């Protein structure tokens, strides 16, 4: 999941012909000032923090300016702010347009129907979650033949558009659909979509690109997500790694088994702190890397729960033993292991030789892990 900052989303909007306010990105107060002075951003203008969290307006991360000096001052006020855990490093300056109404449109995936869904609402400018269901028009869109003219017509009706604004919406939705498909988006959302004069303008842009389509889109590879530094390292190594606020590290394979493991630990009073999903690897080196990553998170104890399928038990055991040798003595942690499935015997034996006992049942092993972490810390 790659969430694009507003300005990046708008770059895509431009590519697909979706109308935008005139604007410019700035990374310093001076850049903000000169964006206005050069005329690239007409006055009056709005100065917006480029952070991924919502609620920027109320949070002081959006300001208005009537001159280059005001734009500079606004930029100084916003840049460097910590907004919902994100540091503001970039600003988007845009002309402030005379808006007569704010609408909402988005395209995302409807998993249950296995079809993209186009949502339209005449109540834009607020979080869509707060809009009554009856005020949101939903239409499934078949990938073949794609978004049809009649679907766009119905959306225009739902938004209450007529005349030239209807034609404007038609073209905009064609572009939005194309973007959704060609850029492998999970979500494209325009909120608010503003009526300005006879036409429409996208005032905000929320675009989420699917991770798995990375092979088609190397251009998104370097865009960072909302991850902690360790999570970021894990991502580079293609290990699923999530930090919570407990003290037991969990290494499992497969999302379902990982979650079930957390459930059981919690049942016995444990507080999982980091969990790490080995997924379907069968490379001992990757297992070693995963363990070393876990060590860096400094858990009180680690619970290893593996059911060998693609990932074989002896592979995990080998990787684990290799890793334990590399962890500095100060970073060592008590380890409770449970390995079952393919090559179970070999894996259990390798662990045994390294002095680690594999407890075969989930309940008992989880209890042991909770005990190892202790009640304090």
């Amino acid at each position, binding site marked *: 999941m790659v969430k694009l900052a507003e300005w990046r989303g708008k770059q895509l909007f431009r590519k697909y012909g979706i109308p935008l306010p005139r604007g410019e990105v700035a990374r310093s107060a001076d850049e903000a000032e000169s964006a206005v002075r050069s005329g690239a951003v007409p006055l009056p203008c709005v100065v917006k923090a480029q952070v991924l969290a919502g609620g920027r307006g109320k949070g002081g991360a959006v300001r208005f300016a009537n001159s280059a000096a005001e734009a500079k001052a606004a930029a100084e006020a916003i840049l460097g702010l910590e907004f919902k855990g994100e540091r503001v490093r970039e600003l988007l300056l845009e002309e402030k347009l005379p808006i007569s109404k704010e609408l909402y449109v988005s395209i995302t995936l409807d998993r249950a129907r296995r079809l993209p869904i186009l949502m339209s609402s005449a109540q834009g400018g607020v979080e869509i979650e707060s809009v009554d269901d009856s005020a949101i028009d939903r239409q499934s869109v078949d990938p073949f033949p794609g978004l049809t003219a009649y679907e766009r017509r119905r959306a225009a009706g739902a938004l209450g558009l007529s005349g030239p604004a209807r034609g404007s919406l038609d073209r905009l939705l064609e572009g939005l659909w194309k973007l959704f498909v060609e850029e492998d988006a999970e979500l494209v959302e325009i909120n608010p979509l503003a009526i300005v004069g006879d036409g429409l303008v996208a005032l905000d842009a929320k675009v989420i690109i699917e991770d798995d389509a990375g092979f088609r889109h190397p251009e998104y590879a370097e865009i960072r997500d909302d991850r902690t530094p360790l999570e970021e390292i894990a991502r580079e190594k293609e290990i699923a790694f999530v930090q919570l606020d407990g003290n037991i590290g969990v290494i*499992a394979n497969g999302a379902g088994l990982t979650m079930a493991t957390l459930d059981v630990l919690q049942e016995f009073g444990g507080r999982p702190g980091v969990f790490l999903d080995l997924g379907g690897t069968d490379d001992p080196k990757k297992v070693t890397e995963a363990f070393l990553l876990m060590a860096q998170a400094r858990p009180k104890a680690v619970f290893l729960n593996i059911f060998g399928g693609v990932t074989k038990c002896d592979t995990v055991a080998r990787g684990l033993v290799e890793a334990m040798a590399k962890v500095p003595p100060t970073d060592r942690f008590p380890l409770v292991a449970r390995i079952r499935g393919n090559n179970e015997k070999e894996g259990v034996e390798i662990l045994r030789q390294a002095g680690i006992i594999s407890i075969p049942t*989930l309940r008992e092993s989880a209890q042991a892990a909770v005990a190892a972490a202790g009640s304090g810390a």
Partner: protein
Amino acid sequence: MSVLVDRDTRVVVQGITGHQGTTHARLMREFGTSVVAGVTPGKGGSSLDGVPVFDSVQESVDRTAANASCIFVPAPFAKDAALEAIDAGIRLLVVVTEHIPFHDMLVMYHYGRAKGARIIGPNCPGIASPGRAKVGIIPNVVFRPGRVGVISRSGTLTYEIVSGIKDHGLGQSTCIGLGGDPVVGTSFVDALPLFEADPDTDVLVMVGEIGGTAEEDGAEYIQSHLSKPVVAYIAGRSAPEGKRMGHAGAIISRGKGTAASKVAALERAGAKVARFPYEIPDLVAQALSEGAGR
């Protein structure tokens, strides 16, 4: 009888010359499956453990009467592999490959549907019926023939649970791992009627996860259409909201999609919901004995 696979299942392995393809072709044969062909473009004419390798699925169908495909090809080429299998007349596709973009899977799913082909997966462990056939990667050791049907969205958790059923002295009729991706070819709602119709299944185990509404939809189906007893388990009750649990299927979204919502829906539908995986075998045994008493 069994669900979707049986002794007449003739498997072609797409991507057979890759590491996973080779390994699992062997394991499927050890399970007793008729693995009749492999496909790797450019490697046609060779063979692997006596299984002939072809350049195209069509050739494999023409020459070996393959009727099911197990797909291991890397994600960027998986869509093409599935379309090729569908066009060659294959009507059961198990897509093991993970990280297939959902936009690709939309195409695979809707194309398959139009042609009458069923896809299991992607990113799934596949399907197995002990004593009959396995198409996929579920470890052979967890199985033993029996009368418990298993449908699961998970991978290794399925192995854990299926294994638990075996350790308890019970056995499975058919086990399907649906995969946990945002778009799956076969969902609970699609799989449940197959087990309802299967005379070899007496009780069903349904293994779900947080995220999406597949479990709620399944519960609705159970309530209105299912006569057989269901034991369910939902993984992720303790997961914090909004954090990813390793794949996109596990993001919690408002209201529906939480463990609480799923558990409630399943209990309303009359399913017995286990709180932990190790509670499942007892609940299954109980349902079987109650069923025998009816």
